């Protein structure tokens, strides 16, 4: 193995890490400005033009903050937990293709860290590892609120991980591969999977919201009842790492959603100029993030019992049904290609049925 290969690996890894870092910094700015707009305010606009230097000011402030470790904390785990939360949020992005490969000198550079044949399973395995940081942060703080927040968060994440996995299965079925590049290539010519399987995309989106503990599933951080959930005892840069992990996960799950259902890096002229790929990804991610923030500004938090019931009693069976509908539809499409459009029709019926059941159950509870 020659040194240029090592150089390529290190450069690609650093580009990804710093892109996510920069993305995190400006996502906080983007979110605050947007939330301000939704609430008829201005948002941070003092530091630099349009408040663009605000993230830097925040970072400097956090560096100069005191870091507290509670006297009764389990010190080693307390120190490791933020790292164990941050690292998975970065490496889960390793298999996402950001664009088609391009020629640089006499070597072909792929625009992903690792183009592996079990890409989707890799996403699942890292998502399941990501639980540890949070549950251990809660436990090692030796604080009641933190412990409760960590446990709730872990239970929520594992519950929605099943739905996440089944939504991945839908994308694999449609793309006929577990490799993310293959899945993107299968969506060429505008055949985005969201058109064939809109309910699958919606399920994946809901599951990722729960997976990154965003509104309306931000139970672990329910300020009014758990102070701040699993990171109650964290301050300074250790807190910043949790914050960073949460926002990087937002970016990464948006990228995953874009890759699996919204055509990934595909767009006009992407074959002629492969570096357009990351641009299209960026645009798609920004739009998906906008929707995430919009949801935060609009919807109230879901009660924890309903959140778990929604995950286990509604999303899981619905996801199973959607997988089966997709499989049957693909087999029927081999007889007649037009039958592929039975998939969206029946999936939408299944989705409508699920919403009807939620509505009925909520009504019954309201009058009970």
């Amino acid at each position: 193995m020659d040194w240029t290969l090592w150089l390529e690996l290190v450069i690609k890894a650093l580009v990804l890490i710093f892109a996510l870092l920069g993305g995190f910094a400006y996502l906080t700015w983007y979110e605050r400005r947007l939330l301000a707009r939704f609430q008829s305010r201005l948002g941070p606009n003092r530091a630099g033009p349009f408040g663009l230097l605000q993230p830097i000011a925040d970072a400097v402030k956090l560096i100069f903050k005191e870091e507290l470790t509670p006297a009764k904390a389990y010190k080693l785990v307390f120190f490791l937990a933020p790292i164990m939360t941050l690292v998975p949020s970065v490496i889960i992005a390793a298999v996402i293709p950001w664009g088609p490969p391009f020629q640089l000198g006499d070597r072909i550079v792929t625009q992903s860290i690792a183009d592996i044949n079990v890409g989707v399973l890799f996403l699942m395995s890292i998502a399941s590892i990501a639980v540890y940081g949070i549950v251990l942060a809660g436990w090692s703080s030796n604080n009641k609120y933190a412990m409760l927040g960590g446990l709730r968060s872990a239970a929520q994440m594992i519950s929605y991980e099943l739905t996440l996995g089944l939504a991945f299965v839908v994308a694999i079925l449609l793309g006929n591969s577990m490799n993310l590049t293959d899945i993107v290539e299968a969506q060429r010519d505008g055949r985005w999977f969201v058109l064939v399987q809109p309910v699958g995309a919606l399920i994946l989106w809901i599951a990722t919201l729960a997976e990154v503990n965003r509104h309306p599933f931000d139970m672990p951080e329910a300020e009014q009842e758990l102070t701040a959930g699993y990171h109650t005892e964290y301050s300074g840069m250790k807190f910043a790492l949790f914050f960073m992990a949460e926002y990087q996960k937002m970016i990464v799950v948006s990228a995953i959603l874009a890759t699996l259902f919204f055509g990934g890096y595909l767009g006009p002229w992407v074959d002629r100029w492969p570096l357009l790929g990351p641009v299209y990804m960026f645009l798609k991610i920004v739009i998906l993030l906008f929707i995430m923030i919009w949801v935060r500004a609009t919807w109230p938090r879901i009660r924890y019992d309903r959140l778990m019931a929604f995950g286990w009693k509604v999303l899981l069976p619905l996801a199973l049904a959607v997988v089966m509908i997709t499989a049957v539809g693909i087999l029927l499409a081999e007889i007649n290609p037009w039958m592929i459009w039975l998939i969206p029709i029946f999936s939408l019926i299944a989705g409508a049925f699920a919403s009807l059941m939620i509505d009925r159950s909520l009504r019954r509870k309201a009058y009970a």
Partner: protein
Amino acid sequence: MSPELILFLVLSLVAIAAAIGMLISPNPVYSALFLVINFSTVAVFYLILGAPFIAMAQITIYAGAIMVLFLFVIMLLGAEKLAPGKVLPYQKPLAIGLAIVLMVESVYAVLARNPSDAEIIVPTEAANSIDAMRDLGIMLFSDYLLPFEVTSILLLVAMIGAIVLTKRAKGEQE
């Protein structure tokens, strides 16, 4: 020595150290974490052997799902604060005896290998192709169909067992 062999030796040391750490660590939560490290190194062994699917499944199910359950159980029992309980009198001799049996068995398994298939197959780029995954899927869903279906019954039994053990009858006090 090939890079794979060096990697294997280093990781074996890590795996053994993690296993010992799991046994001697006083706090069960630390033990669980050592076990996570152990499972992850085993996953890398599978990778070296050219079995990425098994490696990822190992991380997803063992390091992910099962160890989260272990952590839940430790916290459920409040085991991290329990004083060491009574040890069974015959525990040590029994453990040593079983360990010897296991050792003899694995040494026998290594020595008794048929020389014709003793050659170690070095995984190639082909293991990273989607066709390799397809072969695995076809094998699983044709030759090994029965074990696959039986797995679901095993899972069913586990599920019902867990519910029976934890759920009280209606009306009973929590």
